[in-house]
């Protein structure tokens, strides 16, 4: 038991496969998400990393923060690289060149590497049904290159390529619903997670990794640097994203939707928006507009939960 830390009735391994000493910004919730995921994944894992924050903070030659096999090639191809890893391992095991065992094959990529430039390779891998877990670490912009907008940037956020100005509120499009895009491939498991809810996150990583076939987990990763907030607020802001209904925590297991963290009464989105410099410029009407949209989206999700959990007639 000395290798475990106890939190109430939960025990978490002390083993770190994503080790300290990397170069993430102070307060980076994305690095925390990776750390938690790696605790669950354990040693029998191969990580395929896209170009992005987690890649550059963890592997400047000749150093590495990874205690598990890890590969990075380029930005937009992780879906394809993991397909090759999976196909290769499978055939080597079949031919007796590698020992038969369950190896978690896990992609880690940012929101740009997932919902923009890497979408095609991801869609191909999901459609072909490779046995892997895809973790999208969503900090809602191209943070590694300096806070440029992506299709995952939320409406109204100011970024360096969609800045707020006299004639613009910044991002004028709604965040691409990537979990639904993944779910549309009819894969066995899709979930959302946030490191502000560590046990929920770890449970989902465990479930996704154990699932036979493709699994997709979309992790909202608060970025104090890019979202313009104090580093010690990352966990609190992540919690508010969930409690306002902006980023509900749910899973879709074999088509069935389920809320994993219940939020019976949603907090107003204003509480979340006001904490972040990227939304500082928003007027009341903009906030009301966002509130309307969040209400609609949340209701849609509730409908899906109800619809897919109907008792059999």
């Amino acid at each position, binding site marked *: 038991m000395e290798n475990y830390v106890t939190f109430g009735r939960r025990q978490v391994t002390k083993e770190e496969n994503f080790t300290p000493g990397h170069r993430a910004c102070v307060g980076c919730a994305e690095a925390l998400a990776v750390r938690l995921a790696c605790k669950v994944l354990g040693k029998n894992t191969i990580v395929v990393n896209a170009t992005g924050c987690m890649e550059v903070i963890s592997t400047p030659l000749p150093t590495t923060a990874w205690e598990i096999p890890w590969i990075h090639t380029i930005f937009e191809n992780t879906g394809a690289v993991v397909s090759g890893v999976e*196909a*290769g391992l499978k*055939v080597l095991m079949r031919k007796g060149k590698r020992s038969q065992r369950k190896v978690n094959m896990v992609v880690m990529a940012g929101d740009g590497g997932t919902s923009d430039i890497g979408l095609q390779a991801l869609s191909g891998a999901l459609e072909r049904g490779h046995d892997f877990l895809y973790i999208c670490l969503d900090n809602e912009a191209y943070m590694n290159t300096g806070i440029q907008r992506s299709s995952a940037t939320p409406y109204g956020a100011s970024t360096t390529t969609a800045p707020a100005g006299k004639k613009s509120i910044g991002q004028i499009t709604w965040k691409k619903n990537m979990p639904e895009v993944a779910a549309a491939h009819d894969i066995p498991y899709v979930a959302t997670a946030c490191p502000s809810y560590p046990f929920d996150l770890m449970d989902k990583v465990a479930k996704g990794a154990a699932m036979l076939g493709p699994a997709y987990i979309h992790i909202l990763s608060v970025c104090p640097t890019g979202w313009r907030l104090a580093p010690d607020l990352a966990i609190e802001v992540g919690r508010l994203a969930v409690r306002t209904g902006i980023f509900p925590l749910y899973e879709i297991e074999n088509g069935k939707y389920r809320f994993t963290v219940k939020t019976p009464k949603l907090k107003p989105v204003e509480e979340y928006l006001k904490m972040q410099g990227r939304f500082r410029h928003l007027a009341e009407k903009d906030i009301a507009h966002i509130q309307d949209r969040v209400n609609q989206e949340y209701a849609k999700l509730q409908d899906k939960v109800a619809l897919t959990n109907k008792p059999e007639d």
Partner: protein
Amino acid sequence: MSNRVGIEVSRAIAVAAKLARVDVVAAYPITPQTHIVEDIAELVANGELDASYVPVESEHSAMSACLGASAVGARAFTATAGQGLELMHEVLYVASAMQLPIVMSLANRALSSPLSIWGDHSDAMSMRDTGWIQLFAANGQEVLDNILCAFRIAEDRKVLLPTVVHLDGFHLTHVIEPISIPEPSEVDGFLPPFNYPLPLDPDKPVTMGAFAPPYIYPETKKAQQVNLLAAKPVILQSWKEFGDHFGRYYSPVESYRAEGAKVLLLTMGSYSETATLAIDSLRKDGKMVGALSLRLWRPFPFEEIRQAVKGADVLIVLDRAVSFGGPGGPVCSEIKAVLYDEARRPKIVGVVGGLGGRDISPSDFVSIINRGIEISQTGSEQEFEMFGVRE
């Protein structure tokens, strides 16, 4: 015992992949490569080849999936052409720099626009500096033989570099030739199983593809250059052993009636064979002409080329690609650079021809050689001439 059969060259490539016992094939269809990947898919579907066939959604993903497969220690193969190669372009550099010994056959095809599915070397030349070992084949037998050699070369511990076998789209991919197919046991004796030294393996974790700040990047590139040059003795040795096993010997530069020739024509790929007919006819007329065919494009065979052109007064280089606004076709430019420091060197004439599948017949080659001789004496107003183009 080899079995000599009439077979389409594309099908022979699939047979080569089977003989090499490839583990993973990731491919996306594109003319004129399609017969290759269709046949491999069929071999896998029929259980004749125990491999994972990954029908990816693009060539970019084809090469990326090969990266992943190779990184876990699987023998990976793909094939593409033209636009497909362009789409996978950035991934090509990664394969060589990360020392993943993928083997690819490239059905050489012209590049858009205008769209052309027919052959030339524009695609091949675009991958010139990607760090791959590159071989050009002149006929179907060379294609099959060199794909087997490619695995042997690529996977050698002293090499570990991806290798491409270039073959002309349609002029080779779609012709039926008599080809000697070796027995599987013979191939097993020549090509040992792939044993990648440091694969992605949970029992022995490695970090692959870390990034390089300026304090270390140039060292990685120097290492790559040293590595590619060091591949040459392995290439020569592999060809020698292939010859010892199968009776067919290959060399970096092939010559035809070059002995004592005052005029030499240098080509790459299948036109090398057509050119020999022109050489024969000119020789009949008493002209001292010969032909060279460049088989090893990377690493470049400096010494062999210098030796091969000694004694010639004129060297005509046929390129099947254009370096727009540049000094000549890419091959001619390189040949000029390689020979520049020689005390005695032939007059070098650059000709571009055969673009987008335009045929060059034996009599066309006679015209090219005669015009080359003329230019060598009188000069030309242009840095290079494009053969047979209507103006």
